[in-house]
């Protein structure tokens, strides 16, 4: 496998003549050279074929080794973010089962465009983040199941039936990259996986470089608001914190280490953020926060710098699309610096690069 990556077919032109040049063998030399060349090519092709016949092996987030004899052809994916990754890899036809939330909410519109089977509600749903119907999964005869690694009981039940399970636990961007690469291996689409991961890393790197020199004091204080409630936020050591920092902001509660906590209203007043970023929220708009009497004295509300992510699908922090979230927040946090960034264009470029022609025009 490694050979497949690192080998290169020697170009004819660059080939050095290792045979002693002999005038009398003017006819033999090119023939011998051609033969050697063909031999090398054949040997390499055989190796390549043999490598294909070698096992596809990854380590999942539980630390377990998963080995497949050939790329997965019947995948049951119970994680929506991982599923969007599979679509990026172009292996959607290998998906035979999905999680329930594909058919609900705003993501359904996107998947319906990406895949006729979802539009016609033909893809079976054997489970979701909490509940997995063992029977339904087994009936689909999967050769790979992708599921959250905390669902230990379901995983144990599936593995005891000999079904390979890839368990996922995402705590940061690096985990998203690893997930994509691993899925690339398991589906035989490593090249494509590299492509999209490298693309994302580059895009994020661009933004990171541009904000690297902004000192902490000059960064706007950002308060992140989850959809469950105004006081639900994420502090230091979380994906949200990475997002804010990468985008050139400063998480107002970054000094507290917590993935998710409920803040005290008085504390929020004390932090007095310059910018409020709301996760995609079906029930509330920035206008509702601006109108809330308890939030009036906060700088972000006074300056109307309260923004909401437009979509779950586009900005999903658990997929490679988080690059769009970074760009969006960067523009909100430092509008002057990122005046040149056209979010609409960025969105379309990203969707094309990740999903291909299918989502044009959304």
């Amino acid at each position, binding site marked *: 496998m490694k050979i497949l990556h690192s080998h290169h077919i020697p170009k004819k032109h660059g080939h050095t003549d290792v045979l002693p040049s002999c005038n009398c063998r003017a006819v033999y030399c090119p023939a011998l050279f051609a033969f050697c060349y063909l031999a090398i090519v054949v040997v390499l092709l055989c190796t390549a074929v043999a490598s294909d016949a070698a096992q596809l092996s990854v380590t999942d987030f539980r630390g377990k080794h998963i080995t497949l004899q050939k790329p997965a052809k019947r995948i049951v994916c119970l994680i929506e973010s991982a599923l969007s990754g599979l679509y990026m890899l172009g292996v959607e036809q290998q998906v035979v089962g999905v999680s329930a*939330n594909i058919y609900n909410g705003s993501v359904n519109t996107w998947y319906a465009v990406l895949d006729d089977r979802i539009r016609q509600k033909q893809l079976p749903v054997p489970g979701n983040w909490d509940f997995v119907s063992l029977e339904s999964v087994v009936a689909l005869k999967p050769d790979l199941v992708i599921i959250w690694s905390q669902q230990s009981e379901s995983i144990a039940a599936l593995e005891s039936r000999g079904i390979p399970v890839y368990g996922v636990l995402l705590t940061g961007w690096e985990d998203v990259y690893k997930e994509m690469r691993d899925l690339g291996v398991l589906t035989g689409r490593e090249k494509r996986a590299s492509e999209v991961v490298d693309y994302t890393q580059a895009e994020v790197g661009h933004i990171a470089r541009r904000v690297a020199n902004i000192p902490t004091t000059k960064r706007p204080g950002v308060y992140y608001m989850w959809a469950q409630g105004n006081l639900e936020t994420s502090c230091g050591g979380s994906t949200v914190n990475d997002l804010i920092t990468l985008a050139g902001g400063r998480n107002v509660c970054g000094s*507290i280490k917590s993935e998710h906590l409920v803040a005290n209203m*008085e504390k929020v007043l004390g932090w007095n953020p310059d910018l409020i970023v709301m996760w995609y929220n079906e029930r509330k708009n920035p206008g509702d926060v601006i109108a809330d009497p308890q939030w009036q004295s906060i700088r972000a509300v006074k300056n109307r710098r309260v923004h909401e992510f437009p979509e779950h699908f586009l900005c999903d922090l658990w997929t490679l699309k988080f690059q769009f979230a970074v760009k969006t927040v960067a523009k909100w946090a430092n509008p002057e610096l990122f005046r040149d960034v056209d979010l609409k264009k960025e969105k379309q470029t990203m969707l094309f690069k990740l999903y291909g022609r299918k989502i044009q025009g959304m």
Partner: protein
Amino acid sequence: MLRPAPVIYYLLPFPVLLLSLFIGPGGGVAPADVLQALGHKLALSTLPTDSTLDMAAEVLFNIRLPRICLDFLVGGALAASGTALQAMVRNPLVSPDILGLSSGAAFGAALALTVGWLPLQPSAFFFGLLAAALSYLLAVNRRGLSIVSLVLAGIIIGGMFTALLTIVQIVNDPFKLQTIVHWTMGNLHNASWQRVRSAFLPITTGAAVLFAMRWRMNVLALGDEETRAVGLNPEREKLLLLIPATLAASAAVAVAGIIGMVGLVVPHMVRMLVGPDNTRTLPVSFVFGGTFLVLVDDLARAITTFEVPVGIFTTLIGGPFFIYLLKKSGAGFGETS
């Protein structure tokens, strides 16, 4: 006879409420600023333009004061409800939950959180009342309301709503689930004047009716036959207690989530302090329950940076305190003669 409770119980809330205004999370507003802001407000003078003083006034009047008011209303409603229901059921082991109204309200809140277009508090309030009404209708028959039937019906209806709640939890994603769990453990951190306004009318109306009924509770507590013998219709009296108690308790749960201990234990504490005569225990329960919750919430606000559901504190503090009172003076219940 009918001597009012020692005035001290009625005066108790005032210093507590005043002191509570000065309590907040560490590193926040300085007490001196609070005092100044308060002074200006009382003197009806305008604040000098000073950002720290502005902040103090903001915190005081828009965050702490509504929260303290809400604490008092909710604690009072739960305690008064508990007292009334214990008298009605003739059993000191009941709390406002016997009719399953907490489970109903929890289901209503979870449904609202899941569905999106349903407003949260009204939904919780409605389903709390629905659960209580279903329990009553299930238990009542031609011959009247049997207490045992009512308690059993409450267990069944409460169980059904809990099952429905579990279904809602399964359907939801992990974040919404967390919110639902938070809600069911008591959430006073979202206190605002809007919430105080929405809870004020049902709680004060319910409490007022219970206050008017406070002497009748004594009559009812002696038995159905005795009640009829002295000229009151026990079924009517039970409804006159049940409806306001459920109204107040539902409103309290809708606006603050499920806060344990207050409805069950505060009536006991009050009875140990002032005796079982309901003309005293009912008003004192309201005041005591409200003050208790204000105190517990003060503690919750002061010691943590982030919000911990207040239900945890009421149980961890109320429980041992109750045990101490129990050991010292005994609950003093007679068995059936």
